């Protein structure tokens, strides 16, 4: 990522140093993991779960990490707590860099950095009493000397999260608690060491509608009382809008848009954010689901699209967005979807397996043999049938080279976060140098 985003710290906040500064953070996972696999020539694939993220976390704020599954929001959240080893980058916390600290040095810091999990059923050991579970962090960090002390501290924490009277809950097993009570216990466990930062990973998505508000209210209370900073990970834009001061929209490991909640929800800049917002079901029965949702689904994270990851689905995609061979194949699939089985039977063999020819390249050579000219005319037919298809904006030229048809795409550019008012957005539409006139 070429540029560093400017921090969105406003002037009055600057007096307080930020809680955390994340620079160029990468978390990559090797697929088919072993070095051995690569040694023997298996092209070991890498999933860039977090891909060059820059972020400043202010003290006391609630930052929302919003995205769909596979967007990297959970991985990023866990990296902030040192629960995931970053591949590279910097996580400044106080005088430490969490990204490079050894596990041993990380441990004492974990007291200040806590997590609340999505599934309260799974987060509690089913055979551990609530008092033991809640006091567990104290024991790990050696903050209590006796079991009794742990128990009384656990009781305090339980009262704090509203499980009152605590005596009623201390000796229960998780199975004896309702979903909301379990989540309260999980939160009690998270705050018992007096943390500064709480990363809450979808803390209410497993709960019933009537309970969600209670947990959110509790979290807001705790934030005010204990001076907490939250990172709120969610795919639910409605709670993000209500709960967060700032939101970062993530897509395939990158932050595509970040800014104050109100502004983003009022005027989203990135086409992806816009799509997400329009897709949220609303209680207003007069509103109808939009017909123009982004097509397709989130691509395979092991082989993200060229250029802007969102371009294959983006209705506004244009020349520099990173067109490549797969987009051509997707275009044909959409075409056949529209035209039906017969068109596929006729054209399918002509097009062949585009995927197997130079994926991720700006130049596609389609071996068509003696049908080369037919393929050229098919391509122009397809273009004529759907001239508004964004793909054609990216096609620079189609040439026939003997038995090969060469489709040349325009060079793609990785979008970097750039400021538009208070919002940082990674989209060429907002880049004055590239924006179509």
């Amino acid at each position, binding site marked *: 990522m070429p540029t560093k985003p400017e921090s969105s710290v406003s002037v009055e906040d600057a007096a307080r140093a930020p809680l955390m500064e994340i620079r160029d953070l990468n978390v990559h996972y090797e697929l088919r993991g072993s070095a051995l696999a690569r040694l023997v020539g298996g092209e070991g694939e890498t999933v860039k779960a977090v891909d060059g993220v820059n972020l400043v976390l202010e003290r006391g704020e609630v930052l929302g990490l919003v995205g769909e599954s596979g967007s990297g929001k959970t991985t990023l959240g866990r990296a902030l707590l040192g629960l995931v080893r970053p591949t590279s980058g910097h996580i400044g916390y106080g005088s430490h860099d969490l990204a490079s600290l050894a596990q041993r040095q990380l441990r004492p810091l974990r007291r200040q950095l806590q997590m609340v999990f999505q599934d309260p059923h799974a987060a509690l050991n089913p055979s551990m009493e609530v008092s033991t579970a809640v006091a567990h962090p104290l024991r790990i960090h050696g903050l209590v000397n006796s079991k009794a002390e742990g128990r009384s501290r656990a009781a305090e924490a339980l009262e704090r999260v509203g499980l009152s009277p605590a005596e009623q809950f201390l000796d229960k097993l998780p199975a004896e608690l309702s979903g909301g009570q379990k989540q309260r216990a999980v939160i009690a466990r998270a705050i018992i060491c007096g943390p500064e930062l709480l990363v809450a990973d979808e803390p209410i998505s497993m709960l019933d509608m009537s309970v969600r508000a209670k947990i959110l209210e509790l979290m807001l209370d705790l934030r005010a009382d204990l001076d907490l900073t939250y990172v709120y990970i969610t795919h639910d834009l409605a709670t993000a809008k209500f709960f967060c001061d700032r939101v970062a929209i993530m897509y395939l490991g990158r932050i595509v848009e970040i800014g104050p909640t109100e502004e983003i929800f009022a005027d989203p800049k990135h086409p992806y954010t816009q799509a997400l917002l329009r897709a949220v*079901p609303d209680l207003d*029965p007069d509103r109808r689901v939009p017909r123009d949702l982004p097509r397709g689904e989130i691509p395979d994270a092991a082989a993200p699209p060229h250029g802007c990851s969102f371009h294959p689905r983006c209705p506004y995609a244009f020349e520099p967005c990173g067109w490549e061979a797969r987009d051509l194949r997707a275009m044909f699939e959409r075409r056949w979807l529209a035209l039906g089985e017969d068109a596929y039977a006729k054209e399918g063999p002509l097009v062949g397996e585009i995927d197997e020819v130079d994926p991720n390249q700006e130049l596609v050579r389609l071996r068509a043999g003696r049908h080369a000219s037919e393929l050229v005319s098919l391509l122009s037919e397809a273009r004529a049938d759907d001239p508004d298809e964004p793909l054609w904006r990216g096609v620079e030229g189609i040439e026939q080279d003997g038995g090969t048809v060469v489709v040349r795409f325009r060079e793609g550019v990785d979008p970097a976060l750039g400021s538009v008012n208070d919002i940082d957005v990674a989209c060429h539409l907002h880049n004055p140098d590239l924006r179509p006139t």
Partner: protein
Amino acid sequence: MTEPVLSVRDLRVWYGTERGPVQAVDGVSFDLRPGETLGLVGESGCGKSTLGRGVLGLLPRAAKLAGEVNYHGRNLVTATPREVQRLRGPDLGLIFQEPLTRLNPLLRISQHFEETLRTHEPGLSKREIQHRSIEVLRAMGIPPTRYRAYPHEFSGGMRQRIMIAMALVLRPSFVVADEPTTALDVLVEAQIIGILADLRRNFDTSLLFITHNLGIVAEACDRVAVMYAGRIVEQGPVADVFARPQHPYTKELLRSTISLSTTGLHYIPGAPPDLVEPPSGCRFHPRCPSAMRVCPERFPEPVAVGPQTVECWLHGPSDLVPAGGSEPLAREEITVADEA
């Protein structure tokens, strides 16, 4: 008005458990007209999934069913398992919550379609099967290139579309969709809602849409039935119910739903009741802000309020309310210890 496709009368479902029978569905009645989508909402454990499956005769062996499920003049509750099984597919369809595990991993998508079509239309040629399958897959946005792929080669959203296609390829007149988008992402969810909303237009299929998400009901359904503790407490056209909810539970549920326009938090105190020993009278009375003395005494009768039907003593009938019954009920305090 046209004849209902499906008419459910006083349906009851019990489960045997160690602690005693659970009255999961407790005397539910509703009608579904051709091409109509009925949203069935409620919190987890209210019996909405049990109801959906009970209608299709797909309950586990431990469950007992009573009442009427009238489909084209036949009562599915008393029909033989074989008869019901014949209807499943060409007449009654089901779309599941977890699309990822609903396809046999060892069979190609094409084989799934072949099996389904061969079962109910044995005379079809392979060519016809392929044609019909690909057409319905196309309608669901699955390109023909993927017809022979294996289930694991598809994402969750695509698998759900395949499941829907497989339910629709037989053109059933009634489909139960059981939380079909719960496991899916926002955009995919919107896509699926779009597809299901289109069913009415394109397939003339009636849909029982089970969900806990009121927003989805608002977007995709014609009518809504709100379930609480095994009963439908309110049903009516979506627009009316959302604009003028009549049952206190519906009101509370709408208020506590967090949407993009939410500005303040609200919640219902307490927790849904234990269905082994449900509260007397109106099941909601211990949590109801408007509970009256009559509420724990007697079961409320269904009452028409405008286009809606509501089971709540607030709406009468007043001749059944005993003297002093409309005095406010002195409620026991609800603590966090009782919450969900």
